[in-house]
């Protein structure tokens, strides 16, 4: 007679290895394959990210082609092709058809993918839903031909199975193409491949990305720069971010003979002196073999590493986009909505949380075709990868929501929440370790240090927005005044003269009374000879003006810049140039010109104009000279400025009566006939 199995035996009988298929089934959601629409996006995302990472590692300007075509009722064929370095034949099966296989998991630098799940999960998904193999074409430069493999992922063993193999001649010198047939659904709009690739194009302005949609529509995101981002360096792990298991792993794996050498050479930020301090605190001999440090000793070592003050982690391993390229990327991709303002992007200096460096970048775009009556668009990026899901749970969204945007000119109910208005806010967080809310890497988790940097960066960008909006308000006001003097006043004069049978009077004095401003206009014009900026200054005030004009040019545009007439002073390092203008009588005008070499990237908003010698209230198209310029002004200008200030103090002509057309006069009487 067999005794009944014990509980332990029963449990043991149930324990077995979980196949990857089961693992996949249970984790579909965190892997991004929970529905046909999302599965397509995840597949495109994983393949495109791999392509970009591959190109960047090899120093190649990426060309990525994404083709999506219909392959039956609920099936799509997805092909992603790049001009990357290609993959060696022997690596192909493992790279594409084996979960948790990758080169980046153990490296300490910023990269898009890390775990080595992504593309193999897509292959597995395709295998499972359509029983069709993944087709891989890859060619490395050294070989004559490309390898063509059809792969399945063996769901029992988590091993690749090669279904067929061939070689072919490929017109590419090097590159990789993956083709999958999967159950999927194509939509455009939010959380679509289009949206994802558009976001990717914005933060990867060096990449050229082409999307062919199932209906044949071909969308091309041209590259906006041919400069590759500086490659993110691989750096040593920094003790501040180290956990016990990792420390053990490094101790075991190191080739350093002594603990002292291990500490000062295999870890980042640990000088020889700091290493000695660490050893003294943890009471471990410097000469000990690293592999022998275990258990209790390991814990003491880690505590000492965390206690001793070390150099901050280096930020070399980060790959920020940079202010210039954020601007180019946004302008490139948002061209069709013609925004009227690109705030100078903010690229904060790297900071450290835990042992990991991170940095925050923000870009704000305003106006043009962006919808005015909706919440602002938020583009979130983590290590140059667009985040499309879980917006509400993301630290980026929270940082935006907790800022009072009303102070910066956007609408926002109650001063918190996502503001509304024709604006787009781009936020990029780069780090070797981004704290995501979940394995699906859809949202960044709350973290006080990241939040602080986010808020600071957003505030800087928001201040630029406010400046722009207040300038625009003044410009609108100027527009109204120009309409009065250019269109309405001449007609009014003509009508009344006609009615009374008298000649049309000279309107100059009235014009200066109505305008009562000095107006500056400067709009860059690009032509083959270069970029010209004609500058018109008109004195629309009733008295003669002596003025000093200043301009701040982006310092990188200063070499090669020419000024006509010759300026009275320049500060090339700061990009500052100034002139004393000839005395301008009422209605008097003067003209200057700035010239830059062809292809200079310059917009009206890149030039800051300042005028001294007149009160702010009488200035349009320029601002008063900021105090921190610290320029020694000529005597005449000082006098003019004093006179202007005195004048503006005494302007209340006392004739302030109710504006008949602004009073809610007859409007309130709508109850009557």
């Amino acid at each position: 007679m067999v005794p009944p199995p014990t509980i332990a035996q029963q449990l043991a009988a149930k324990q077995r290895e979980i196949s990857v298929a089961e693992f996949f089934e249970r984790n579909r959601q965190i892997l991004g394959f929970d529905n046909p629409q999302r599965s397509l996006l995840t597949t495109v995302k994983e393949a495109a990210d791999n392509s970009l990472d591959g190109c960047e590692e090899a120093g190649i300007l990426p060309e990525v082609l994404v083709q999506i075509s219909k392959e039956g009722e609920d099936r799509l064929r997805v092909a992603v092709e790049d001009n990357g370095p290609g993959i060696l034949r022997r690596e192909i099966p493992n790279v594409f058809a084996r979960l948790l296989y990758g080169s980046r998991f153990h490296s300490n630098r910023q990269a898009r993918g890390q775990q080595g799940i992504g593309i193999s999960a897509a292959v597995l998904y395709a295998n499972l839903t359509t029983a069709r193999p993944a087709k891989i074409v890859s060619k490395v430069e050294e070989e004559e031909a490309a390898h063509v493999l059809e792969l399945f992922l063996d769901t029992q063993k988590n091993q690749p199975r090669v279904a067929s193999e061939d070689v072919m001649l490929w017109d590419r010198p090097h590159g990789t193409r993956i083709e999958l047939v999967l159950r999927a659904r194509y939509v455009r709009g939010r959380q679509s491949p289009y949206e994802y690739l558009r976001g990717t194009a914005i933060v990867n302005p060096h990449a050229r990305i082409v999307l062919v949609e199932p209906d044949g529509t071909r969308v091309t995101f041209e590259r906006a720069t041919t400069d590759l981002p500086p490659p993110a360096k691989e750096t040593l792990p920094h003790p501040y971010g180290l956990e016990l298991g990792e420390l053990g792993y490094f101790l075991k794996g190191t080739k350093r003979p002594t603990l002292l050498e291990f500490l000062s050479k295999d870890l980042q930020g640990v000088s020889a002196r700091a290493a000695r301090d660490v050893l003294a605190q943890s009471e471990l001999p410097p000469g000990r073999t690293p592999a022998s440090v275990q258990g209790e000793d390991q814990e003491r070592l880690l505590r000492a590493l965390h206690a001793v003050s070390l150099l901050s982690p280096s930020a070399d391993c980060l790959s920020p986009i940079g202010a210039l390229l954020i601007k180019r990327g946004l302008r490139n991709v948002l061209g069709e909505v013609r925004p009227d303002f690109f705030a100078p992007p903010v690229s904060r200096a790297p900071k450290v949380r835990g042992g990991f460096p991170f940095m925050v970048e923000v870009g704000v775009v305003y106006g043009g075709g962006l919808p005015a009556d909706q919440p602002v668009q938020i583009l979130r990026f983590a290590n140059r990868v667009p985040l499309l899901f879980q917006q509400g749970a993301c630290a980026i969204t929270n940082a935006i929501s907790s800022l009072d945007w009303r102070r910066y000119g956007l609408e926002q109910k109650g001063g918190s929440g996502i503001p509304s208005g024709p604006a787009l806010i781009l936020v990029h967080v780069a780090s070797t370790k981004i704290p995501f809310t979940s394995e699906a890497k859809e949202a960044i988790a709350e973290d006080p240090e990241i939040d602080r940097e986010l808020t600071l960066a957003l505030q800087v960008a928001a201040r630029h927005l406010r400046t722009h909006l207040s300038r625009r308000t003044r410009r609108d006001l100027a527009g109204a005044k120009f309409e009065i003097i250019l269109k309405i006043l001449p007609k009014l004069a003509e009508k009344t003269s006609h009615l009374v049978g008298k000649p049309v009077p000279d309107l100059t004095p009235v014009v200066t009374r109505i305008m009562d401003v000095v107006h500056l206009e400067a709009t860059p014009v690009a032509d083959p000879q270069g970029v010209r900026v004609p500058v018109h200054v008109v004195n629309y005030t009733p008295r003669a003006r002596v003025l000093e004009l200043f301009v701040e040019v982006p310092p990188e545009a200063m070499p090669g810049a020419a000024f006509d007439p010759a300026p009275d002073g320049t500060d090339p390092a700061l990009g500052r140039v100034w002139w004393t203008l000839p005395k301008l009588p009422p209605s008097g005008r003067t003209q200057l010109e700035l010239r830059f070499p062809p292809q200079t990237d310059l917009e009206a908003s890149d030039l800051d104009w300042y005028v001294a010698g007149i009160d702010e209230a009488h200035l349009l198209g320029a601002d008063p000279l900021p105090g921190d310029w610290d320029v020694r002004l000529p005597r005449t200008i000082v006098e003019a400025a004093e006179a202007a200030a005195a004048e503006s103090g005494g302007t209340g002509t006392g004739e302030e009566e109710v504006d008949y057309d602004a009073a809610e006069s007859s409007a309130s009487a709508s109850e009557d006939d």
Partner: protein
Amino acid sequence: MPRSRAPAPAKTTETDVEPEVRADALQPTLDLAGEIWSQLDHGEVPHMRLPLRTKQNLEFRMREGVWKLGRQMGTRSARKLDGALMLLRTFYLVDFINEMSRDRKTSTLRELYYISEAWQEAKFHSEDESNLLIEDLEVMCERLREDFRLHPEENGASVIGDLTIQERNRKGVVKTINCRDDVGDGGYSLPFNVEKEKIQFVKTSAKFVIAIECGGMVDRLAENGFDEQHDAILVHLKGQPARSTRRFLRRVTDELKLPVVVFTDGDPWSFRIYASVAYGAIKTAHLSNYLATPSAEFLGVTASDIENYDLPSDHLSEQDVRALQAELTDPRFGTAEWRAEIELMLKNGKKAEQQSLAKYGLNYVTEHYLPEKLAEMGVG
């Protein structure tokens, strides 16, 4: 003081509160142009001053017994875009009416609105805008819009009752019409011009005039023979009454010495209808002693009628409540009686239509309600 009269002088011998006819009715418009021209010539920013037509600027004139515009002035200046545009429009309008005068044409208000299509940036964006500007011009020139050869479309507020009038029709023929015997069921339709050169009162047997808000109630009274049984003239107000209706009521009181009672729904908007008949409307306060009938009395439906007659009622809407609250700050409703009436309606939170009296049958209004109310008021 506003003056009126179309250019063709009409001979009347009666004592006349109206000013004499002016041959150069449009001279003030040209004076206005002259003023702006000389401002331009002197290098001044063109501007004109106008009395504010706001509730806050209504003043009661004891002698005339009406509410007129007070002394608060506003400036319309070319310094601002809106002001500049209104100034330009003003002279497009002045030019247009002087042109009409030369061509002996008239224009409806609506036609003027379309005429302005040719004025480019000065064109009107709505008929309200053009109407407001015409009123501004009336105020500044102390003329009536009829002097500017502008008139509303015929809106034919109707009159039923034993009143004989003479109307000079559009062919210049004088017709004698009795508003009870010579008209159909629709009654006599008032033309937009009800001045003496157009309409003369001949005789009447009526003892009072009852001005009614809704057409349905006018029909009810006519069908029940109320006008004959009670010697009344029925005048349909058609909601907020047009100028011609108000002018007609004023002339009837002045010339036939008949009392006017106003019979409306019992809601905040009806109070305003009464106010514009009796006290003058805010928008046309510059014409109050010409359009308003200070002796007109409010008959009902009052807030207390709703209770006393237990009338079917609706709850006041949010808008209704706001309207009542606005009336509490309206100087025209500043009397103790009106305050009590408005506060009662706010307290009860109810409003009722005049036709809700039909709850007690079709004859109730003419056999019970009106006789009782009229007796209370000592009218009829």
